[in-house]
């Protein structure tokens, strides 16, 4: 185990940020912490990077305790906080140089590790970090976090506010880093990024809802899930909410995702019910649940 977390709790004044969190990350694993803003992701990251001390529980990184052995952890991990903490008034190259220097290394010494990423921003190396696009900032921040060849990489919401193209490129880079043997803990509010991790923890309100592989989590979805469409979205939702057999109903893009209280729902009866309420162009078809469906199902309890 590269990272272990056992019964960690943390409160700020009256607000509980983390409640009795436990999980472990294997060496070389790409582990995702998936949850909305305020779920406690950043607090957990700060505890693991020794920036905060937990109220209760024990956590270790590379075998070092996060409270008593914090100096050893600070020497060995790479950390990319949310909001890409860079020096906005320094150029791309100056930022990277600075972070290399404070970790007692140079860009040249570890260039092979950051090369993949850095070549993409190298054409702009004399541009100030503040003038970069979100995607380029993100790549620079990752380069800075990697420059000292850390064993463990902590990435707190690295893709928030970044356009889809850069997000995709970013995840490709993470896969390549993982192949080089790095352990990566990454957090994201985007449910669609969960599938790119080896294992994920779904987290909300400071509690872990489930930990597993993304595949296993969607396979554990307890009920058959249906895509339903009709001519009027609002009427469709309100009608389904009033239907006696409804277990859950959530708008989902151009569809409504519906689950029934019964194990084998009666599609014809449901269709009749909706028609009766004046809806037309009704389609009901079975669909595969996504991580987001699983998250909502788990969060509902």
């Amino acid at each position, binding site marked *: 185990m590269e990272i272990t977390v056992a019964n960690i709790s943390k409160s700020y004044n009256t607000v509980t940020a983390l409640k009795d969190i436990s999980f472990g990350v294997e060496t070389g694993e790409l582990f995702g912490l998936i949850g909305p*803003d305020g779920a406690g992701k950043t607090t957990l990251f700060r505890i693991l990077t020794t920036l905060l001390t937990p109220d209760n529980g024990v956590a270790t990184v590379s075998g070092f305790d996060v409270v008593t052995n914090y100096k050893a952890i600070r020497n060995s991990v790479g950390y990319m906080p949310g909001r890409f903490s860079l020096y906005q008034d320094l150029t791309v190259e100056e930022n990277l140089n600075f972070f290399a220097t404070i970790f007692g290394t140079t860009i040249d010494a570890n260039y092979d590790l950051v090369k993949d990423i850095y070549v993409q921003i190298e054409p702009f190396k004399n541009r100030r970090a503040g003038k970069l696009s979100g995607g380029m900032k993100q790549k620079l921040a990752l380069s800075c976090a990697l420059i000292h060849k850390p064993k463990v990489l902590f990435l707190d919401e690295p893709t928030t506010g970044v*356009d*889809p193209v850069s997000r995709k490129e970013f995840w490709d880079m993470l896969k390549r880093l993982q192949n080089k043997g790095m352990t990566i803990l990454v957090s994201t509010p985007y449910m669609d990024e969960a599938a790119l991790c080896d294992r994920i923890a779904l987290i909300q309100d400071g509690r872990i809802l489930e930990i597993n592989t993304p595949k296993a989590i969607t396979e554990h979805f307890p009920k058959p899930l249906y895509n339903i469409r009709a001519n009027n*979205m609002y009427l469709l*939702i309100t009608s389904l909410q009033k239907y006696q057999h409804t277990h859950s109903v*959530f708008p989902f*893009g151009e569809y409504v995702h519906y689950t029934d209280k019964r194990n084998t729902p009666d599609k014809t009866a449901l269709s009749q019910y909706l028609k009766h309420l004046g809806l037309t162009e009704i389609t009901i078809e079975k669909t595969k649940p996504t991580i987001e469906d699983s998250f*909502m199902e788990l969060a509902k309890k």
Partner: protein
Amino acid sequence: MKTDYVIQAENLTKLFGDFAAVNRISFHVKAGEIFGFLGANGAGKTTAMKMLIGISTPSSGRATVAGFDVYKETEAIKKNIGYMSQKFALYDDLTVKENISFYGGIYGLSKKAVKEKSHKLIEELNLQAVSNSLVGGLPLGWKQKLAFSVALLHDPKIVFLDEPTGGVDPITRRQFWEMIYKAAHKGTTIFVTTHYMDEAEYCDRVSIMVNGKIEALDTPKRLKAHYKTDTMNEVFLKLARG
């Protein structure tokens, strides 16, 4: 121009020096439609929206919002639209009730109207218990729902939403979209700018801006069929890569 369009833009352009932040965009939005206005950061979404809500004068082109001209009738536009952004929506240091009456006051609602609407709104959102608490202490999801309701307070013809649901949990997000559907159902036009592609899937029609131009404009379903993909995210990836 036909009158059942609540937003009409013809060759709308905004130049900053030589740089065309918005480059001759044309589109129409129907009454009661949920129109998604997508693009990456820096594609020109915000600049375009600022022209439509009357706080930035276009360099050239024509546009009307709620029937009013964006050059000459900006005051009339402002009275007929609602606006909500993720960054700024409500005052954290005012209570729920104070925020509602403040916005009611801005739009010239009578005291009585504000009182009635505020009562109704608090009931609909189930905020009775916190109606006298400071907004700053409320969960993000509640704030967003409240902000949206406040933007609708003066019964505007069009509501502009600027990246409204970033970061909220999936269930709250759905409740938010239910509210949007409800408003649209009642005839309010919804104009959503966002760079979250999954938010696009909820819209009736979407336009995608790349480098100041509208590169695609259709229903999500047809766009996905045209680009032969399953998600709007991939549509966007294909467009952005050219």
